[in-house]
């Protein structure tokens, strides 16, 4: 207790600095469940009406919220699974196997990672158009996964690099194939990395806006981020309470994931076997 009191000046300053953020979050939550008079910010009634978008029938020309949520879920999950699977194998090869051009491959990964998505968008559009995946969820998933891969591979390579050679040597000497060694001995060692990467790519997919907005404008492939922009753009009837309610709905899975997995997420910055 006394220890805390010694730091009270710092705590006070930090509190003041973070106050705007805290107030913002507080009102985000309060406003979604209450109504208030036009000239006041103090709520006067508790209501769940702002969440009626969840059960009311969608307005003409607007996508159904559950369809949109399902799309977002499929989008984020598939992206995460693809990124993890490909990163797991590619990173292993890059970390352990000596193949021609390995150096350039590694260099290429870094360069790809440095490219902002928006600079590639026209080229991506043309490719999707040619292979006929424009305006489909599958197309957007492929693009998102491809763009996430450099990061994933790089992170996973870091984890593999930290696994001692001796473990593999022992496995090989006992007669296990290279695949068995990877599957049974190495993968368990990098499990924290896989887990963290899975969550990170899921969250990245969950919040992606630009790709679905540009590459899949149809109602069938809408995701929550594009759904929200359309809400705020309504210029004759801007409903901030509705916007905040959809925002809450959109953020809930993210908050839940952070609360449950926060320790595991930190692994991505540590990495590898400990001790």
């Amino acid at each position, binding site marked *: 207790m006394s220890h805390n009191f010694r730091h009270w000046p710092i705590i006070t300053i930090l509190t003041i600095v973070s106050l705007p953020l805290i107030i913002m979050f507080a009102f985000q939550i309060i406003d979604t469940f209450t109504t208030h008079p036009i000239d006041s910010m103090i709520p006067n009634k508790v209501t769940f009406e702002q969440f009626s978008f969840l059960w009311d029938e969608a*307005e*003409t*020309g*607007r*996508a159904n919220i559950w369809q949109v949520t399902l799309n977002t879920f499929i989008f984020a999950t598939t992206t995460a699974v693809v990124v993890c699977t490909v990163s797991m194998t590619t990173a292993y090869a890059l970390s352990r196997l000596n193949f021609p051009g390995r150096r350039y491959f590694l260099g290429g990964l870094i360069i790809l990672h440095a490219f902002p998505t928006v600079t590639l968008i026209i080229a991506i*559009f043309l490719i*999707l*158009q040619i292979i006929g995946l*424009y*305006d489909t969820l599958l197309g957007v998933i492929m693009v998102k996964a491809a763009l996430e891969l450099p990061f994933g591979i790089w992170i996973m390579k870091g984890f593999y690099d930290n696994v001692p050679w001796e473990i593999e040597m022992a496995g090989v000497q006992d007669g296990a194939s290279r695949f068995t060694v990877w599957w049974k001995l190495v993968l368990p060692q990098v499990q924290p990395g896989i887990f963290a990467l899975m969550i990170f790519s899921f969250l990245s997919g969950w919040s992606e806006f630009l790709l679905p*907005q*540009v*590459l899949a*404008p*149809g*109602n069938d492939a*809408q995701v929550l981020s*594009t*759904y929200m*922009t*359309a809400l705020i*753009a*309504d*210029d*004759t*009837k*801007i409903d901030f309470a509705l916007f905040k309610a959809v925002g809450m709905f959109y953020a809930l899975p993210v908050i839940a994931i952070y609360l449950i997995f926060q320790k595991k997420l930190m692994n991505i910055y540590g990495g590898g076997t400990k001790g």
Partner: protein
Amino acid sequence: MMTISILKKALLASAIVLSTTAAYAEDITITVWAGGSNASDSYRMDAIEMAADILSKEQAILGNELNITIEKKRDFGGWSEFKQAVTLAAEAGKAPNIVATSHLDIAPWSEAGYIVPIEDYLDLDAWPINNIYDNLLKIASFDGVQWGIPQDAESRPFFFWKETMSKIGYSDADIEALPAKVQAGEYTLANVLVDAKKAVDMGLVEKGYGFYPRASNGPDFAQFYLSYGGVLQDPATGKLVLDKKAMTDMYQFFVDAVAAGITRKNHIGTDGSQWYADVANGKVAMWHGGTWHYGRYTGKEGNNDFFGTIQFSLIPAGNEAGKANTITHPLVYLITNQETDRAEEIAAQLINIASEPRINTLHAIKSSHLGITKQQSNIELYSSNRWASEATERLLPHASSQPNHLQYGAFSEALWKGLEASWTGVQTPAEAIKEVEAELKAILGDELIIR
């Protein structure tokens, strides 16, 4: 074009004859995308669905089974996202069958091959197209070809807050006579400056709230250019026109308004909801807007006595060179280029049916827009709506439109940039015009006439 058109009609006719003899089920999906549409604009899409229902029933009587599924979308973020989506989808060969969009898109989209002329599929001299106002129909054409059908009409009036006007000395009869005086050119923008200043000086409205223009670029500002005798397009050559005198006068009007303290120097960029709240409840003496504002003022902004509190007229003339005017910026239905002619043909027929006065009236009244056909005045829903009928009568006959010119977007953008620079005091109107002229010359070259 003509022969192709005849050929297509012949094919169509034979197809219909054939289809009556051999009955077969046909399933087709028609996608409708509506740009810049809110919940109240739902009939832009729903009308097509109603039309599909009617067309299927008509075909069923003829012994054909035609099942039409309509897919509707209006959520695009904004106009630019909508246009981007249509452009990319058209490039990818996945364009929606029908788009409801600004008539200004006809020029670029027809040049790019995204849309097909509706005149290839519909008889323009037959009902209900022969009942559509000629000036509206003309707005949906480009280069002598009828590309689209008007979806709605609107116009952009000048508004007065009655209470403020009466406090600065106008009697009720004066206020009632204002629209006529504006139309006759007896009440001009010079009077606006004087009256708005009076309202500010007397403390009836705050400083900067005497005249409250639109806070972002839009077709509205071209009206003030017309008020000072400006011309947008040369009727003989179709080239765009920069009338330097008119443009300078128009910029000067806004500069004077800022100098007189009736318009805020930092007005541009005022938040949209703030803007509506200000004008709808008497915080502002005079402003200009659109006919669809009626829905917002009386709806969300809670003005329960529109006609008792607000007077509306054409945009007043600026000087003797110009006259009172208003610009209509109708949306149009366009059909996009599809792989099969059949999809285009059905889309055209759906638009045709959706343009029936009774169906179009649903959109007009629900969204506070104006009708497209003359017969709508005989539909009770329309004629009993005071706003629709008065606005149609007072404004629509005097409405002009912005030209369907490939480069009009650049022209409008340059006009706005010059206005913005003068308004905020970055440049004098003369300096701004010089820059506008140089920029337009560079972009438009031969396509610009400078007066």
